[in-house]
């Protein structure tokens, strides 16, 4: 399907990661425009008017967040969250591996807007290529005069530091990310104070997702009205959706918000592979409840998806077909959260462990009728009682799976085996 790309622009251009190629395709022109035509406050206002919302998952309005910074003269920091580890989500990875300069350009503009002179990229530990690309691109930007002292004679100076995490999903949570960035164990911090008030090294800090920052240069180039012309009033603009599962063309797709889910699956991703029948869809990464096929016409914007019973989240759209055992899928996801729970708070640490074990037993055909009730109750004891959102994320899919596919869970107990013949692999080695 052909379309004009903005965030994924130049994805067909080889070597776009080289600064010369990037500039030949109009790169760093938005930066020039921002520095020469805007005061920092005007840029904050521009982003506010564009209605851009955080693309990391929570969807908080970016301009509003920027406005929270206290004006007390303390140094400010911009931290870009590139710890993309949500199963089913791989949009930031493409952005930093393929076109790192657009992120750097967005960071410079954003730092200028919030008056930060130091910016950090927290790169997921497993993204070795992305880390190397970013490090290289940052060096190129320094050599080209886009970083360092007095950028483009604007009087604005900025240093960017690229930091590679050590492999923890929880460090995608902004306060755990800051802890890790400061060299400590990646556990989430108590809020308030929020990072905008006391973030990195106790200073006012803005933490934004890679995709969020990548949106800034196009907004500067084309204006807030262009941005709000797409999507809905509350969910304007563009979003990258990562589609995975048994579809013909899995991958990243840039869509105007409010594009129907059906269009994403059938047109963009080419529909399900031959012979496969849709079972359900996880629309926003592994942390959100599933949607059944009857919700296929839901527009992909924050409000509509919420109304349909799920969340847009990070835009990691996982397609599950009829061959997938829902119990096994639940087990696989809960196991992920068990492994990634930081261990700080009791319900998440112990609850994910408990649920994963029960689900494993169910999948092996060793479950009892009580197990379903226990699972539901354990999930309820986690729900809303954890320190950070990871605990709630661990039960999103499971609870919706039990609600929608209770028969399948019960069939596992009744038949003493998985009706779909799925196996818990690697049980001996988890």
């Amino acid at each position, binding site marked *: 399907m052909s379309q004009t790309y903005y965030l994924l622009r130049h994805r067909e251009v080889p070597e776009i990661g080289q600064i010369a190629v990037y500039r030949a395709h109009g790169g760093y022109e938005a930066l020039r425009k921002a520095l020469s035509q805007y005061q920092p406050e005007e840029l904050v206002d521009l982003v506010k008017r564009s209605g851009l919302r955080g693309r990391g998952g929570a969807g908080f309005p970016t301009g509003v967040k920027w406005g929270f910074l206290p004006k007390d003269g303390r140094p400010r920091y911009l931290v870009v969250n590139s710890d993309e580890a949500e199963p089913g989500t791989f949009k930031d990875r493409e952005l930093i591996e393929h076109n790192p300069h657009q992120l750097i350009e967005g960071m410079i503009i954003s730092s200028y807007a919030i008056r930060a002179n130091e910016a950090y990229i927290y790169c997921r530990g497993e993204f070795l290529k992305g880390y190397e690309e970013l490090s290289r691109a940052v060096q190129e930007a320094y050599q080209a005069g886009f970083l360092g002292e007095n950028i483009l004679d604007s009087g604005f100076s900025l240093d960017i530091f690229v930091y590679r995490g050590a492999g923890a999903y929880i460090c995608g949570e902004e306060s755990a990310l800051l802890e890790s960035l400061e060299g400590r164990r990646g556990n989430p911090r108590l809020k308030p104070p929020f990072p905008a008030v006391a973030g990195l090294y106790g200073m006012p800090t803005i933490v934004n997702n890679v995709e969020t920052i990548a949106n800034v240069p196009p907004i500067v180039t084309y204006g807030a009205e262009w941005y709000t012309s797409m999507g809905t009033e509350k969910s304007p603009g563009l979003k990258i959706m990562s589609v995975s599962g048994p579809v013909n063309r899995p991958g990243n797709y840039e869509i105007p918000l409010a594009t129907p889910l059906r269009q994403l699956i059938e047109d963009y991703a080419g529909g399900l592979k031959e012979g496969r029948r849709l079972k359900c869809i996880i629309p926003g990464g592994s942390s959100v409840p599933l949607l059944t096929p009857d919700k296929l016409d839901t527009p992909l914007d924050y409000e509509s998806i919420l109304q349909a019973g799920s969340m847009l989240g990070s835009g990691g759209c996982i397609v599950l077909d009829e061959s997938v055992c829902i119990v096994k899928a639940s087990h696989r996801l809960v196991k992920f959260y068990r492994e990634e729970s930081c261990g700080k708070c*009791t319900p998440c640490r112990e609850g*994910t*462990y408990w649920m994963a074990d029960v689900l494993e037993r169910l999948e092996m055909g060793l479950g009892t009728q009580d197990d379903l009730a226990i699972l539901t109750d354990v999930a309820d004891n986690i729900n809303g009682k954890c320190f950070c959102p990871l605990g709630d994320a661990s039960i999103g899919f499971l609870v919706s799976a039990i609600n929608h596919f209770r028969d399948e869970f019960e069939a596992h107990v009744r038949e003493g085996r998985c009706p779909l013949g799925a196996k818990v692999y690697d049980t001996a080695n988890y």
Partner: protein
Amino acid sequence: MIRLTIDGQEIEVREGTMIADAAARLGIDIPVYCYHEALGPLGACRMCLVQVEKMPKLATACTTAVAEGMVVHTTGPQVDKGRKGVLEFLLINHPLDCPVCDKGGECFLQDYTFRYGPPQGRFQEPKIQKVKDGPISDLILIDQERCVLCQRCVRFMDEYVGEPELLLEGRGVETVVTTVEGRPAQSQFAGNVIDLCPVGALLAAPYHHKARPWNIEREESVCTLCPVGCTTLTTGRDGRIVRVEGRPVVDRNWGWLCDRGRFGFDFATHPSRLVNSRLHGREEAAARTTREIGQWLREVVAQEGGEAIAVVMGGLHTTEEAHQVYRFATEVLGTRRLVVSRDVPGYVPRGLNGTFEDLSAADAVILVGTDPYESAPVLHLRLRERLKNRRAPLTLMGVAPRNLSRSTLPVETLVTHVGQEADVLAAALKEAAGDHPAVAALLSQGAGIARGIDPTQVSQLSRVLREAERLVVVWDGVEPDVEHVLAALAQARQGQTTRVLPTFGPSNWRGFERAGFDARFDALTRVLEDARDGKIRMLILWGADLLKDYPDRRLVEQAYERVEWLLAEGVFVPEGAEHFDAVVPGAAPGEVYGTYVNMEARLQIASPSVNPPGQARPTKSYLTAWAHALGKPFVVDEEWDPYDDASGDLLPEEPLPQDIEAIRAPDLPEGGVELLVSAQVWANGIPSQILEARLEAAQIARISPLDADALGIREVGVIRVESAEGVLELPVRVDEHLTPGRLLVPLGVGALPVNRLRPGVVKVQRLEEVQTP
């Protein structure tokens, strides 16, 4: 102030108060594991869930600040289910080995489960297995399976103590508390994590598998090993003290202890504990010894009157025991030669004595001579807590012959020569208030020169002396002239607060003073001189060990040799056993009821948890017997009360000292190494088998890296120290903190008889270097 309602009760609290603390004020119990007021909120355990109206989810009471008009419910179906859920989670991987757990019966996991938990668990899967009885150090064990990961221990060591020796390793359900790189935790405050642990995860190794809560005597007591006088719980079992825990006192202390106090309780059961009477150097039946002593007393009193007898009070005795001895001496013997055993010459008048509340309220603290980390460890923690309070900045300075700064407590130190502290303080006082009559009187003999000290530092100190609203001086008493400077300072600062905390011992010296003894060093010296000069026929040491403690060993030897009768009561045989005609075994702390007065002049009650061992008897038993021998009536007054009606648990207030004594500028040593002494809790001569290795390691002199280098000593060696008074051989180690040109020797260690020499310049020579592995 914020008004809110908790369980239907209205309360007004300060802004920023957490719901948990507001509820506690109303007497409403909200269960917590991770929260501790001294450590601040964490929000990890989720045990304190409460319902706040208009909030969509349950809130954690320990992390949610109060808000105007807030309505909180600490019970109700939602809260009850939330708590049940959390407890069920905590128990799924808990080994439930309560029957063999030291904490069984005094465990918050048991208590809360009983009160709030589910009657039955539903978890059928295998539990995670972790390390059991693993070491944190030689004194502390960890059972990682029982741990609820509340992080109190980790945060205490990291944030509160500033010695981050514990950490969390692994993640999720595999998370464990362990030590940094598996190295044993060496901090002297590490033992507090045992008290902080709400479950049976952190255990005292000496108490491991020793007792159950229902077969122990656990009594409120006071630690007597240093002048801080930490409040404790002492556990006795089968006639032996087996455990000491910290005891928090609301609004006064958190119940911290140092490991010296926590694990050093076994001196009372040490092999060298005196449990038999000794007569002329041999063990003798108690009755016979007491009878013999009675005859000597009768003889002396009959022939020359009571004034031929002097009593030196010391050791770890209670105020009541001292008062019994005072009454016996004055009423039965008829002597007024009643003094206190001292190891340093300084003295603090009651009128200057401050409290820990003064310390908390202080805006400036000056450490004179003393390093609280070594001399009064929990005071170091108090200073650190005070310094960390960002809302009220604290100026912390030091005047001492060595740098007092530590990584955990930065102190701007004016490094003086030995014996120069008073002069340097006087110089700063001269600059701050030279015109004040008290200061003029102090300086009338020409003191206040501060030779060799950076004038900007003196000015900085003078600014503190002038401007601090609430000044607290912590002093080790080594340099006696400091007393006069402090008196003048308090006079000159009329209108501002000036308070002093003495860190010298014996730990209950102020209690002995309250009981009627003269605690001034000069009084003790006069008694010893009179003994040497033949004016005293009998010298009685009640807990005192003068050869070990008194700074001039020669004078003590002369006195011992000259007196006709030399008697001692004590927990150990005093040094120079050959001099003593009789030694009788006394009771130790934890074996008698009584009060101790700490460095705040605060009375604190201790109840016994065991009886004295062997023939050891409480003071009154001996006194009653001897009074009988003298044929005089003597009834021990059990009703004597050291408390004063007006001053609560503090000793009666006294006015500031008025008479200011002039001090002289000291003769400063030229070059050479200066001998410097200091009281240290880890090297105070009181033995312990539990702490044997640590005590041995602390009983060593220290030199600076520069001097060590010059002597050719890398880490540890033996040196020969020579002065006009004599020669000593001392084991020595390098101390990074020590200023070049100083040799630091701990006081009161038998193996380091520094009282053979005088403080001042000594000649130092290397004897050998000891290779350390």
